[in-house]
């Protein structure tokens, strides 16, 4: 009991967010990812946030070699945006930047980004919480450069073929014309862009 208590105090005091007693929990829905698309001139910035369950089928910390391999493969696939989001070749798009990573809770704490779970305070089994409560999320960000962006009339989401657990992507898009929101579902994986660029 004593060790647990000491451990608990250490965790609480060592975490700057908890020290300010901020408790925030981001929503996390399995099957649903978020895609943000910003278009300016020839450049397209895309950010994808998808639950670990959608991408690799699990959200615990990968320890077995099979799970680690699954995560590595997923990150490799996520590193190729033009294979995930199919754009007409007439648009002449090339990848300028692509980065994909798995964001676990530990990373969040280090980054000082946000705290995804408040279980710290609710129970004192801190030593177990990583296995128990961790929601993980894959985060990929890309910058594309399209020489002929006018030819981009739609985006086809091969994403759903590559990740069979993904059901839906909530898309927010911003372009010259304005901001839009779409729900792209597995059954109809196409985003119509006519009149939106």
């Amino acid at each position, binding site marked *: 009991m004593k060790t647990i208590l000491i451990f608990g105090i250490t965790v609480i005091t060592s975490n700057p967010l908890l020290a300010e007693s901020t408790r925030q929990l981001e929503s996390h829905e399995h099957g649903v990812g978020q895609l943000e698309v910003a278009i300016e001139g020839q450049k397209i910035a895309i950010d994808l946030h998808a639950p670990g369950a959608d991408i690799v089928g699990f959200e615990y910390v990968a320890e077995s070699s099979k799970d680690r391999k699954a995560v590595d493969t997923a990150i490799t696939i996520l590193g190729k945006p033009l294979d995930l989001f199919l754009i007409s070749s007439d648009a002449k798009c090339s990848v300028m930047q692509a980065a994909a990573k798995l964001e676990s809770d530990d990373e969040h704490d280090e980054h000082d980004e*946000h705290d995804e779970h408040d279980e710290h305070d609710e129970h004192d089994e801190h030593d177990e919480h990583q296995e128990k409560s961790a929601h993980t999320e894959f985060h990929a960000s890309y910058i594309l450069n399209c020489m002929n962006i006018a030819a981009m009339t739609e985006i086809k989401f091969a994403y759903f073929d590559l990740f069979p657990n993904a059901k839906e992507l909530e898309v927010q898009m*911003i372009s010259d014309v304005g*901001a839009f929101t779409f729900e792209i579902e597995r059954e109809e994986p196409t985003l119509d862009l006519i009149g939106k660029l």
Partner: protein
Amino acid sequence: MILRLAFGSLMARALTVSITVLAISLSIALFLGVEKIRTSAKASFTDTISGTDLIVGARSGSVQLLLYSIFRIGNATNNITWASFQDIAAQQNVDWIVPVSLGDSHKQFRVMGTTNEFFKRYKYRSKSNLKLQDGAFITDLFDAVIGADVATELGYQIGDPIIIAHGLASFSKHEDQPFRIAGILKKTSTPVDRTIIVSLEAIEAIHVDWKSGAKIPGQSTPNDILRKMDLKPHAITAALIGTKSRLQVFGLQRFINEYPKEPLLAILPGVALQELWQIVGVAESALIAISAMVVVTALIGMMAMVFSSLNERRREMAIFRAVGAKPSLILGMLVAEATFVTAIGAILGCALLYLGLFASQSAIDQAFGLWVPINAPTKDEALLIFSVIIAGAFISLVPAIRAYRMSVSDGMIVNV
């Protein structure tokens, strides 16, 4: 041949035909009118705000934040602290940020505290700026700029004093600090028309002698002392943000939504407008359904007219057949008549609609703040008119086929 016969036969029954044409033209005018009002309502709705990349407020729903910050409907759940506002303003991808402070009112209109930058940054109807109809923007602590509707409804002129009430629909007034109307804005058909805009510092200043929502009795800080005070606001209601590059909008949005020190929400106005319109959109489909039913009713009325005319025209049909007309000619003639009637109805309907629009355009704008543009029918509308005409032709097939079958046997028998 068929056309000439059809035309002649219609002319012979001018009265009944003209009533049918009238019914069809009214229904088409209604249908197109509803369509026009619907599209312009949607356009003026989405045109309420443009050029702003993000709206920041206390964490609530995106639609709610949009409603209270832009449409001045409902109230904020919480305020934003000035410290958080400055934190956001210091982000390197923020190009400009305009604070907005709501909560007080004058008569039925809301008072908004902001900076002069609001006039430069707030844009509506595809990036139009707010313009002054009269006077100037805020130069003094107690200057107020009022929207066009405020000026007309309350009959205010430049230089008039106004007293702001504490809170909304409240009896306690900030009587010690009257404002002076410095400027009147041009009509925009946005909620700005119904807003009184003052400086953020003025909102602080009028609340100096107030504590816990009530005026401290006997205390009244003179205005010249107020002017010298540090009137840095403690809290604001919302903020409008423009980013340096559109590519950074989502990054900034995420920063604000995950801001650890205060629960904040950043929304893309276009996205929130779209979500709001989806809620309002149910009424929109109901309107379309009703006006479509009116068109269907008019077409059925025409079918009834053709049916009843068949009785009168039994002899006529029989004579046609007797002189050698094929049954297909009878059929063709009836269909041509109906198509003709619907086409005339459609043309008249359009004429009626445009006449009505010309007559009432400015009245609609005055009464509802809705600008219905007068422009040629869109592709969709033309397609719609065309499909109504086709539907008219199809509907007339029912009585025409009957006539086709019966024309000889029926007409030759002498009925007494």
